[in-house]
């Protein structure tokens, strides 16, 4: 018997599915399902997150009755299922776990809200429930179909690959990538995060569609959707994000109230759209190394589908290769002694206003006036430059001397210096326009200060 094929969006978990089971004593049980995965024409997998009544029932009596919804047209389908097996390892389990852990981590529920098993069911029958809605809502469904087809996306890939081949510097690469994602594919909200030298954190080095928000924002490896993608090195797509987060928060509230209360980490604010409904994050990997994460968001409930996943993976791979090349090339060229900085021209502050900068040694944090500016490696770089300028009037600096300064703590290879400078420049543009770092030759830059500086250092903030 062939099983009716449902639109893939029915499996995206946007509109929760319903499940009824029956205990051995004949008592029915009915509840929601957070996730239904389509495995093949004859099988689906359901996530088991708690050993609940549903699971207990199917172990006694394997039959289940499930209603699934098309989240666009709201049409309903009835599936008769028979429990086959529970998987606790393997690719199916891993991919379901990734999604659940991302949501768990995002709501501060790691360890509480977790996948126990992927439960595989045979599909005995699948019927569309025609009498569910008053009118056929086919028109509603078809309106939401994407207008663009494979051809337009192939052209987009062509354009992106042409442009990426021609970029020479990291900031060009980031600008070109995010601009092309919008122009060629319609992704209006995107960002790139790079892994720092510890490999334990990612920092946002480029973004588009968020105004000034988010540059320099950090994400710990394994935390939130982006951190989970970075930790697992696997693409993650979440639709109807609000619903799943709401589900996570409902569980969180239940745990907070339960007698066995435990410490929950505070919820991490998602860097990005406050009302994002769909989110996709892709790891940027070169060889075995994680370079960073490319993340796109949408306000549409079903912003991204299987097709977006396929071509964005090609984009991510191309970006990873380009990124690796740009970073290596810049470091290699900086280390050659050939290029010399131009003769230093004294730059006079254009006004006599004094701006106070403070450096907090305990967390390498720099404040301009009362505003937080930057921390960690870029914070130390800025402080080194400001000190040199303040103490001896120096304005010309080279990447090479930064690399050789042990205080900055850059690793000997793959130091990410260029990305830290890109981030530092953007933060200065946004938060402290009185200062700028201007490229003078490859591997050389000049500090231009349009005010007097007053520097203070202290141990704590």
């Amino acid at each position, binding site marked *: 018997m062939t099983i009716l094929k449902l639109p893939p969006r029915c499996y995206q978990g946007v*509109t929760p599915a*319903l*499940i*009824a*089971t*029956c205990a*051995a004593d*004949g*008592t*029915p*049980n*009915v*509840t*929601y399902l*957070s996730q239904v995965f389509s495995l093949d024409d004859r099988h689906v997998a359901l996530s088991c997150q*708690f050993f*609940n*009544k549903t699971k207990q029932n199917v172990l006694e*009596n394997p*039959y*289940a*009755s*499930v*209603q699934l919804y098309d989240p666009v*047209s*709201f049409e*309903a389908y*009835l599936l*008769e299922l028979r429990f086959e097996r529970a998987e606790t390892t393997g690719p199916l389990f891993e991919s379901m776990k990734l999604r659940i852990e991302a949501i768990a981590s995002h709501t501060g529920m790691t360890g*509480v*809200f977790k996948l126990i098993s992927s439960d595989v069911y045979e599909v005995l029958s699948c019927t569309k*429930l025609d*009498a*569910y*809605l*008053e*009118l056929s*809502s086919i028109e*509603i469904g078809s309106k939401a179909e994407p207008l663009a087809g494979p051809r337009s996306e192939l052209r987009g890939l062509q354009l992106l690959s042409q442009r990426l081949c021609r970029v020479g510097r990291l900031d060009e690469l980031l600008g070109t990538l995010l601009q092309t994602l919008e122009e060629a594919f319609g992704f209006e909200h995107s960002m790139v995060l790079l892994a720092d030298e510890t490999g334990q954190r990612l920092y946002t080095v480029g973004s588009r569609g968020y105004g000034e928000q988010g540059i320099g924002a950090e994400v710990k490896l394994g935390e939130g959707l982006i951190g989970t993608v970075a930790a697992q090195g696997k693409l993650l797509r979440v639709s*109807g994000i*609000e*619903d799943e987060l*709401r*589900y996570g*928060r*409902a*569980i*969180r*509230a*239940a*745990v907070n*109230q*339960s007698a*066995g209360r435990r410490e929950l980490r505070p919820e991490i604010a998602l860097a990005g759209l406050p009302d994002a*409904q769909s989110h996709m994050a892709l790891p940027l990997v070169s060889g075995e190394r994680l370079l960073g994460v490319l993340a796109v968001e949408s306000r549409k*409930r079903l912003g991204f589908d299987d097709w977006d996943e396929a071509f964005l993976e090609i984009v991510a791979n191309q970006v990873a290769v380009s990124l690796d090349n740009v970073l290596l090339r810049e470091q290699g060229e900086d280390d050659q002694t050939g290029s010399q900085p131009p003769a230093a021209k004294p730059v006079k502050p254009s006004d006599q206003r004094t701006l106070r900068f403070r450096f907090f040694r305990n967390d390498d944090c720099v404040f301009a006036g009362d505003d937080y500016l930057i921390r960690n490696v870029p914070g130390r770089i800025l402080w080194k430059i400001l000190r040199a300028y303040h103490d001896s009037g120096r304005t010309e600096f080279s990447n090479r001397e930064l690399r050789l300064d042990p205080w900055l703590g850059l690793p000997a290879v793959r130091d990410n210096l260029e990305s830290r400078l890109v981030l530092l420049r953007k933060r200065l543009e946004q938060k402290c326009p009185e200062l700028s770092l201007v490229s003078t030759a490859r591997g050389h830059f000049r500090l231009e200060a349009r005010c007097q500086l007053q520097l203070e250092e202290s141990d704590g903030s």
Partner: protein
Amino acid sequence: MAVRLSEELAEFVEGGLSMLVGTRDAAMRPKVDRAVGTFVGADRQTITIYLNKELGAQAVANLEDNGTLAVTVSRPYDHRSLQLKGQMLSMREGTEEDRAKQERWLTGFVEHLYIVGLPRSVVRQLKVYPSVAVTMRIDDLFEQSPGPGAGRRFEAGSTA
């Protein structure tokens, strides 16, 4: 022995929420349905739910066979949920009076789903009539909000 809903829970159940119905046949095969409307009996020991008559044919057959059913009531925006289990007391065709009650339920349901992002125009399409009204005796009450406490039986404090 029947359980009595507290006034607060009775109000919750009648709040235009999402309602799931589970029944089973003689061979212990379960069937899931959505209820399209409900009201709580005056003594708060019974509730009446409505099924879409055409879609509910299997549920009606199951109830005629053994009368056992489970009803989960759930508020979409925070997933607060309650499961009622019990035995059917009576079943009849829905009347025009019932239909008015169902329409009121649908108005509330449309608003609840609108809060979580479903367009009113889409949810409004839900077919509620012709219907079957099923009155059940509440024998058991369970906390069903997602999480480790799901499935917990309500303590005496929640019933009266």
